[in-house]
């Protein structure tokens, strides 16, 4: 065991993992997180706590992760390279570990230009691939990036993101390979809608032997409406939403669109469960945490394994 986190235990025991996600509040409202956590508890193996996603200021992800811990939901502490230099990052990794956080996700971060402080100074002292390597070095070599020894290693289960869809497509699997080489233990993918591309990407990852070295959790986001599908297709960078999804949502009564979205998500999960190289699903229901119990049930992800 590298970290002894629940996610690591579930994956190493050979179970198909099921993880969730919580966005922290835009304020100091703890109840928001507690409420969201209640929907996730027992229904997922762990939940990501996002780090100022879309570059909008929110409660810090390590603080949000602590609240998840208190609520009995294992957190996956997200850390982006946008806001911190290597000194702050290493310091936060130690602090998070000291408080019982055992999973973390290393990300570049949405560019600050998207958010509510578009002219802030982006840090990007190191990039997400380098962040993976830095945490691994702290964990496995008990060494800071600068070379000094640290007294107790932060034994994190190291996660990274992958986008199987962006251009150049044939390069995407090589970027995954770089993250694996840097030391990623698990991967959570971008929301998957283009199943054909996903199949091809996983096929490439299998061929390169990557799926034997890293656990890949396929990202699934249920569409709530036709409007959401169109918005994600046209306005969210890195998203690849094929027309069949929009057509299928349009094909049902407006009131039934959300249900159809969940149906599509469940079909995706069922396929991923049978896909060689996919070790689990990362569910990202955007501001729809209360639907997680229903989705987990309908996707036959319950009960979650106790390991």
């Amino acid at each position, binding site marked *: 065991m590298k970290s002894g986190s629940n996610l690591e235990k579930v994956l190493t025991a050979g179970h198909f993992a099921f993880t969730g996600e919580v966005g922290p509040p835009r304020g100091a409202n703890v109840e928001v997180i507690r409420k969201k956590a209640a929907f996730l508890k027992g229904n997922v193996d762990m939940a990501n706590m996002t780090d100022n996603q879309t570059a909008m200021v929110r409660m810090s992800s390590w603080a949000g992760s602590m609240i998840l811990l208190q609520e009995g939901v294992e957190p996956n502490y997200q850390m982006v390279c946008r806001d911190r230099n290597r000194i702050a990052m290493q310091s936060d990794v130690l602090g998070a570990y000291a408080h019982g956080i055992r999973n973390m996700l290393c990300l570049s971060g949405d560019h600050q230009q998207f958010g509510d402080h578009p002219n802030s100074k982006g840090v990007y002292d190191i990039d997400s691939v380098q962040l993976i*390597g830095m945490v691994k070095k702290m964990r496995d070599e008990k060494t800071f990036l600068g070379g000094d020894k640290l007294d107790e290693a932060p034994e994190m289960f190291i996660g990274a993101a992958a986008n199987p869809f962006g251009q150049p497509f044939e390069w995407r699997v090589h970027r995954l390979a770089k993250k694996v080489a840097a030391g990623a233990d698990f991967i959570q993918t971008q929301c998957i809608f283009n199943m054909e591309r996903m199949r091809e990407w996983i096929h490439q990852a299998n061929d390169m032997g990557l799926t034997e070295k890293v656990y890949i959790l396929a990202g699934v986001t249920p569409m709530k409406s036709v409007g959401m599908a169109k918005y994600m297709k046209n306005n969210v960078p890195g998203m690849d939403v094929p027309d069949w999804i929009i057509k299928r949502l349009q094909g049902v009564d407006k009131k039934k669109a959300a249900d159809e979205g969940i149906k599509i998500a469940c079909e995706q999960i069922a396929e991923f469960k049978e896909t060689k190289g996919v070790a689990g699903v990362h569910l990202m229901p955007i501001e729809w945490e209360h639907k997680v119990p229903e989705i987990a049930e309908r996707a036959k992800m319950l009960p979650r394994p106790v390991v």
Partner: protein
Amino acid sequence: MIIAERKPFEEIKEMLKSYNNVLNVGCGGCTSICLAGGQKEVNKLNAELTKEIPALKIDGYVIERQCNYDFFADLDEKASQYDAILSMACGAGVQFVAERYTSIPVFPALNTVFCGVDRNVGWFEENCRTCGECVLGETAGICPVTRCAKGIFNGPCGGTRIDGTCEVDKNTPCAWTDIYNRLKEQGRVSNILDVKPIRLWQNQTRRSLIQEDYKARYAE
């Protein structure tokens, strides 16, 4: 070349409000070439200032380069006749003038914007952040520090759009997509297969440089 642009007129006016006798010094180097601080721009700004502030006496003078004291002889004679100097050089030039005449207030008329190239007449693009550790040989002549919005070394990030543009702007090509495509064309994709190590940033404190051949000369 250093690219600069003129500050808003109101800002320049505000800086000069306590002075009656000002010399506007143009620069024949980069800021002249990028059409921001040469003879023509000195004349234009002075005409505007004269019109707006009738009480102001403002003269203009252009020297070859404000970043080298070899070109300061004429200016040395003139400077003491004025109670303030306005410089139309880049930030480096403004500081060099200020360092030369410490008893006279020196004001910048320009904002220094970037180190770049001429895309067309009057149209410039940033191409270099002077990071001090050039990787262009590995990245097919495309700078990840300057052209990637996140300045990352193991790109492209997950934000690249499906059409290969940057997440920051639909009209900006993703630098790393371009790097990959050009390396592929040249049969050099192997350049970027390995994880690029964390950078030891060189540009975090003021740098000075003596070329190897001149080190003996400045040894003392």
